[in-house]
């Protein structure tokens, strides 16, 4: 019996969404656009970054937004020797959990050590390298280039060892 002719068709799904962020996540994104970082104080006084809308233990609505530093300590990391398309950096880097100054939780971001895997370590200090501010009158197309801050976690290009920027 002849081999069946098995057809294969591409299936690309594209669909637009828009997210209403609300006053808590919205505050975090707005702060990023302005070039600083915020967290939120939980019921036990701990500062959670990025902020969450409801307390993880008591389920209370949280409202006390607090500014935290844009530098902190690496608490865990994983080296990416060969970055894939779409990852934040196109050169070797580390995904890292970073506990920012004033925060009680660690946030995931990337650390650029200039490609040197020996230059990252748990406990090391890192600082945010920000994209430039959003130009006055920037269009949506300008925003889409990724060249300046827009209110996204990628407004921080990466973290670098403290003292390097």
């Amino acid at each position, binding site marked *: 019996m002849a081999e069946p002719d098995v057809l294969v068709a591409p*299936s690309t799904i594209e669909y637009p969404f828009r997210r209403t962020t609300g006053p808590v996540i919205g505050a975090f994104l707005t702060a990023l656009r302005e070039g600083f970082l915020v967290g939120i104080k939980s019921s036990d006084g701990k500062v959670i970054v990025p902020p969450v809308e409801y307390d993880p233990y008591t389920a209370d609505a949280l409202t006390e937004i607090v500014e935290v530093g844009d530098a902190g300590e690496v608490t865990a990391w994983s080296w990416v020797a060969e970055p894939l398309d779409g990852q934040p950096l196109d050169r070797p880097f580390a995904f890292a959990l970073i506990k920012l100054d004033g925060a009680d939780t660690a946030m995931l971001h990337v650390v650029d050590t200039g490609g040197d895997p020996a230059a990252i370590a748990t406990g090391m200090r890192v600082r945010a390298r920000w994209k430039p501010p959003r130009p006055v009158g920037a269009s949506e197309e300008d925003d889409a280039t990724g060249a300046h801050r827009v209110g996204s976690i990628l407004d921080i290009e990466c973290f670098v060892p403290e003292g390097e920027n």
Partner: protein
Amino acid sequence: MGKERVAVVGIGQTKHQATYDGSIATLVREAAERALDDARMGWSDIDAVVIGKAPDFFEGVMMPELYLADALGATGKPMFRVHTAGSVGGSTAIVAQDLIAAGIHERVLTVAFEKQSESEAMWALSLPIPFQPPMHAGAGGYFAPHVRAYIRRSGAPDHIGILVALKDRLNALKNPYAHLHEHGITFESVKDSIMLWDPIRYSETCPSSDGACAMVLTNEKGGDEAAAQGRPPAWVLGTAFRSEPTMFAGRDQVNPRGGQDCARDVYAQAGITDPRRDIDVAEIYVPFSWFEPMWLENLHFAAEGEGWKLVEAGVTQMDGDLPVNCSGGVLSSNPIGASGMLRFAEAAMQVRGQCGEHQIDGVRKALGHAYGGGSQFFAMWVVGTEKP
């Protein structure tokens, strides 16, 4: 039914609207807090959370229950997600009631939602599929031929759909939570609205809504306590699901077997022998006006081909002997995932006397109904003032 009796002791919903200006977490939270307040409970009183919504693709948040655990106080508790397309709000409530009926939990919070403003749900299910012709029919285009088939079979006159739309939109004016409040609506304005998918006119279709609904269900002890405190519960008298494939030879999409069987099952559990006589009020999932007469037949309120006559005679009006969708129904508010739970909740609210201006006097038994997919998933419950 399990051995534990189940009571609805708390009900909450959001104001349904085109765009809810907050996060998905805030939306579900608002409904859940109202249900807890109504039940005089706090987060720590709840043993488990059961959440439902229609396809994740509608908001583009995959498995949103993961991110909603904090908002719903589910930390350290079991949390379950239910999905059965448009019927999911009903199925979700039934899963929650099963956990109590089975004696597993005493107090369960159940929540359902949709936030249609995050995208375009109408077209989200019309994505191209390999080797299938792209139709871009949308839900209306899918259902319109079946409505047309109903009209041909039953000989129903054209104005029946208009009457249903007008009734539901006028009822919605009595429901502060309804999305559409069309004060100027008339028979003529519905009739003159654009024909989208013949015979379905624009004003005979449901809106796209953001909204959530929540209920607190308890065992018999919780129901008795609420009653003793002057807050009579709605007792669950019967629940049923049915499913059927999208396609099979001989399938009747006008009067699906799944819906007929589901209704017989839930009536048998609730001791209902004549639904037209025994059910005081019904909340039926009617996203396009013609589905009211179609489901009246599917739910055995009318003989086959006779449903439209009940509509024409005003039987389903608020002052008729079988009021249907006093809340304004899906035609006035459609946060899809929540729409089924709203039908179940509104039935329970009628039993508990909580409906305000759209309350029917003396309701003893009420039906909540939901359907989904291509008329292939059915969920129903009957609630009443007396224990089963």
